[in-house]
């Protein structure tokens, strides 16, 4: 009995162990050699710990930023970063175990739906599934559910999203790629639908429709060629400007000049994202291939839902225009949200590039140039509004100065907060 108690209380409560065991299960089910199972399991364990280390760096930098922003502008300045939310949820908030089980559950529900329904989509973007697992668990906690119900409900809701979102996007994807071979697996699809809707209403139609692909765009944003450089280009100046407004008392240390300190803290944020994403890659490197192998065998006629860069080659100009217009929308949103009493959501360059770029493709295919431009700005406003709506709830749970990105994951969490929680309260 003592041994079982020890295992339950000391080993299975460690999220790193749980997720490593899930990877082990996947590898064993694939009948991998003992050596491969061992190394795969260990890599996953290591991945979780690297992710935790990245999260700690981000939290320390965000705590500093939150403090100086408050003193500089007397407002709540929030960084939209699903990576930071995942890191904090997995570690600081101790939700790692629930997230790990929900991640596994989403895989299973996705396979079940694809196997037994006409919707054959298998969601292959592992990172996005991890974000969805995170946000459904956060939603469960917001609604005050027990861990078991959180995992069960999160698996079902996440699994439905994993099939429904590619299905919703598919008619557009067919138009973009010209065939039905692959689907889009990126949890920003509700944002893409908002852009498509706006492009339909405000865009060009029929003979007046001109594709963005027919214009020649200048090459002038080399900094975007590196993921981390593009984060740094925004975050470091933001930290420094905020520090300049906050003053040396709040932004400096006894030994370092306050602007220099802000510069280094901004760099620390980039380092945190770098380490955290390296951890995520290590963490998912074994689990995702294992489970997608299983999924493909169980659903041989599956339609793979792939990450958003799959669409870039079909409309590269639209990606650039989508990024620019979404960024304009997020900057407008940053100033607009406090007017409505919401938190200041800073523009997130990673999400602006990937979600904004992909949204641009949707805007262009529906409403041509005008559709892509107006739709892009509206998309930028929409993806600023969503994290702003979530801030109060996240702060209440103990998250530090961050909000989620990826519209579908936020909508999933808001469903818990706005629909499920009031129903549970009323019952």
């Amino acid at each position, binding site marked *: 009995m003592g041994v079982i108690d020890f295992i339950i209380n000391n080993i299975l409560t460690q999220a790193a162990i749980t997720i490593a065991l899930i990877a082990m299960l996947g590898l064993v089910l694939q009948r991998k050699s003992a050596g491969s199972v061992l190394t795969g399991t260990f890599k996953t364990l290591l991945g979780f710990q690297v992710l935790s280390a990245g999260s700690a760096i981000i939290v320390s930098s965000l705590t500093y930023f939150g403090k100086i922003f408050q003193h500089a502008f007397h407002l709540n300045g929030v960084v939209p970063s699903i990576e930071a939310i995942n890191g904090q949820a997995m570690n600081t908030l101790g939700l790692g175990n629930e997230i790990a089980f929900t991640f596994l559950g989403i895989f299973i529900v996705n396979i079940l739906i694809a196997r037994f329904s006409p919707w054959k989509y298998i969601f292959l973007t592992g990172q996005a599934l991890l974000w969805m697992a995170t946000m459904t668990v956060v939603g469960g906690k917001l609604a005050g559910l027990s861990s078991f119900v959180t995992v069960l409900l999160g698996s079902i809701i996440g699994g439905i999203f994993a099939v429904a979102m590619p299905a919703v996007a598919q008619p557009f994807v067919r138009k973009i*790629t010209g065939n039905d071979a692959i689907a889009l697996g990126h949890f920003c699809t509700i944002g893409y639908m908002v852009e498509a809707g706006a492009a*339909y209403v405000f865009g060009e139609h029929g003979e007046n429709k001109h594709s963005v692909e027919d214009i020649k765009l200048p090459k002038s944003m080399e900094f975007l060629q590196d993921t981390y450089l593009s984060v740094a280009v925004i975050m470091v100046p933001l930290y420094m400007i905020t520090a300049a407004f906050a003053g040396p008392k709040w932004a400096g240390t006894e030994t370092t000049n306050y602007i220099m300190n802000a510069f280094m803290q901004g760099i620390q944020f980039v380092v945190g994202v770098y380490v955290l994403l390296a951890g995520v890659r290590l963490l998912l490197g074994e689990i995702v*291939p294992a489970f997608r192998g299983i999924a493909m065998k169980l*659903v041989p006629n*599956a339609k793979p839902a792939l990450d958003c860069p799959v669409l870039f*080659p*079909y409309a*590269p100009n639209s990606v650039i225009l989508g990024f620019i217009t979404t960024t304009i929308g997020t900057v407008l949103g940053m100033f607009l949200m406090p007017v409505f009493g919401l938190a200041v959501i800073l523009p997130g360059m990673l999400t602006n590039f990937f979600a904004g770029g992909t949204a641009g493709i949707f805007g262009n295919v529906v409403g041509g140039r005008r559709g892509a431009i107006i739709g892009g700005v509206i998309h930028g406003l929409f993806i600023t509004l969503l994290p702003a709506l979530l801030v109060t709830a996240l702060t209440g749970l103990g998250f530090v100065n961050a909000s989620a990105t990826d519209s579908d994951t936020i909508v999933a969490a808001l469903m818990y907060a706005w629909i499920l929680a009031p129903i549970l309260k009323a019952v």
Partner: protein
Amino acid sequence: MFKKFFKNKVTTEPVEQKLTTEERLALQQENEQLNQDIEVTEGDGLIKKYDQLGENYTQLGETDSAITAFEASLKVQERFGAAYNGLLNLYEIKRKEAAEQKNNDEIQKWVTKTDELLNLSKRVMRSNF
């Protein structure tokens, strides 16, 4: 809402063209010529010849040869176009075949190749800025 937009339906599956014997023969002859030309061609011209070869093999239903040709095209230069679009569909065909045979190693091979294609897409996209 999008009724008008979806009015003109697109082809839902990659078109499998039935070729006549003469057409097959003509394509095979063209491929022989292309294979000879490839030995002495460089740069942009070489990419075009590989792409043409890949498209011809795809029409002939010779998936493996088409993949080799398109991959050779991307090896000369990573870019968007026929090779990327062709490979995305061909990898999916191979992945489906592997799944039907329940061959895990092959499934992983083709899904990993698709992943590499997505990474290529990111690289080329960024180099466009």
